């Protein structure tokens, strides 16, 4: 079985995000970019399936600017076998929306014919949480979102999902799209020898036009703003005063 893992290049989770002066988005110039952390978990899971003998090949796909090839090299250094970069934008500030990403992924999947897609549940830049779901709809495949455990059992996958009430275990028919949550695994480091090996692994470059997908935005960003600054706190002497203050503030 072939496993396909989409990976997105996003602003590094350690970077303090700054909103651009014109409010059109966050400033990405000269900012450290990394693989979306959920996608790292997806890559890790795919590699583990390969190590267990449940998969033969892991293919990482990224859609975005040319610089995303660095993100793909990281996936290769972790252990993916090959990578496909679909260049869909020149400007690092242009985000490709989930529907366009899902359409391109569908086209790649039609060519590649993987038995399983493992994606991150969302990207930490815009938190859309939509690509995996849209992809499964376009493909007509089953989907299992927010996975915290994944077992492949013949032509089915058993997936434990993190839902509001606790854990839910479902069985879905393969091929399917799985989106992963934080607790599925802890991604490995790319060791230096594996970073060196990744240089020799194949990385194909395509464009959105190659797949005939229109990536122009359908959503309009009206405004981007910093979260409100946290106001200074106060110290209370005892529980009674705490309750009184909370009542005063209308919190209880």
């Amino acid at each position: 079985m072939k496993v396909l893992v989409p990976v997105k290049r996003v602003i590094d989770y350690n970077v303090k995000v700054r909103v651009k002066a014109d409010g059109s988005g966050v400033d990405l110039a000269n900012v450290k970019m990394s693989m979306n952390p959920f996608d790292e978990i997806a890559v890790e899971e795919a590699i583990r399936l390969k190590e267990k003998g449940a998969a033969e090949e892991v293919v990482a796909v990224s859609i975005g600017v040319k610089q995303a090839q660095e993100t793909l090299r990281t996936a290769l250094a972790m252990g993916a076998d090959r990578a496909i970069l679909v260049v869909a934008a020149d400007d690092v500030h242009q985000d490709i929306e989930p529907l366009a990403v899902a359409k391109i992924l569908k086209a790649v999947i039609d060519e590649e014919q993987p038995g399983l897609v493992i994606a991150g549940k969302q990207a930490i830049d815009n938190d859309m949480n939509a690509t995996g779901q849209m992809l499964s709809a376009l493909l007509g495949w089953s989907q299992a979102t927010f996975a915290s455990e994944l077992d492949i059992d013949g032509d089915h996958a058993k997936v434990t999902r993190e839902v509001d009430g606790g854990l839910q275990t479902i069985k879905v028919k393969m091929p399917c799209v799985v989106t992963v949550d934080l607790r599925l695994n802890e991604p490995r480091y790319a060791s230096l020898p594996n970073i060196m090996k990744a240089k020799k692994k194949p990385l194909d470059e395509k464009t959105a036009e190659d797949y005939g997908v229109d990536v122009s935005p359908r959503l309009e960003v009206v405004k981007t703003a910093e979260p409100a600054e946290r106001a200074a706190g106060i110290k209370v002497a005892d529980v009674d005063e705490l309750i009184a203050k909370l009542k005063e503030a209308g919190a209880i």
Partner: protein
Amino acid sequence: MTAFSSFDNAGRSPLFFDDTLRMLRDQVRRFVETEIKPHADAWEEEGRTPRALLRKMGELGFFGIRYPEELGGAALDQRATVVWAEELGRSTYSGVAITALVHTDMASVHIFNAGNEAQKVEWIPRCISGEAISAVAVTEPGAGSDVKGISTRARREGGDWVLNGAKMFITNGVHADVYCVAAKTDPEARPSQSVTMFLVEKDTPGFTVSRALDKHGWRSSDTAELSFSDVRVPDANVLGSAGGGFYEIMKNFQNERLVIGAMAMGEAQAALDLTLDYLRERRAFGAPLWDKQAIRQRLAMLSARVEACRQMIYATAARAAAGEDVVREVSMIKALAGELVNEVMYDCVQFHGGMGFMRESTIERMSRDARVQSIGGGATEVMLEEVAKRM
């Protein structure tokens, strides 16, 4: 949370670093954030960096950056070493950083650069995996800056050599497995041709750790005084040619000094970043301290100087990798970085106010750790003489 990515502009520029080196930077940084920073306070107390951590670094290939693939390395060049040293310096725990950096770039390099095939095959793969940790013992109680002035003697006896003397301030000295030791083999010869390097294994009879030294900073690094009393080593343990030790030491200093420069600038940038975070939060006289021009202009100038020094290190590493002679620049870097990191720490402590004087603050530890950067590996004055000779 890391400050706005002051670290990642030139440090990720394709002008100096390709995809491979950027990935190396990412992996070392993640290692520092997850495997070092949450745990290292305990190591500062214990006075050593645990072997388990060094083994993990070995497993990830960090100890083999420069060594050839046949021996298990990645065959990268000075630029990769700079990334490694700078990111370790950025950890804020320079005791941990120096433990690793002495092993990779100051000690095991003696085996690789001067050693014969048999010595390399025996030691380098084990140094790369972290199974064997190395130390280099040149400095003595009576001779530091003046390497030719060492008095540890090695005399010929049958087919062996017998070492007598003492070594001082030896990093990894307490816990290393293998030591590259400088001794005088021919006191009659010209001073520059009288020194030979020897490989001495930990449990060799007569070789003892006299004491673990109690230091001002670098507290998670073990530093020792060593004693050699009729230590018999076979001729097979001579590193390079007899009498060629002084030149080997001088040659390896070039890498060592570049590494100390990169490490120091990692420390300096990290200190500026965390002080900036502090000043943006800390309020006095009705506004964040960062609003005071007197403060922010001082930090802005320091950050300009740190940036200049970092980029000189990057450029010098690239030139060294291309085979250019950069002795002058490396000496400049060691002098400049060793002093600059201390100026940065002084101001960063100052702007932390009373908190900068407290053991609980990171900047307090960093200011102690930085002090040695203008002394070890070639004191500023000695470096400036090297520069002046080439002016």
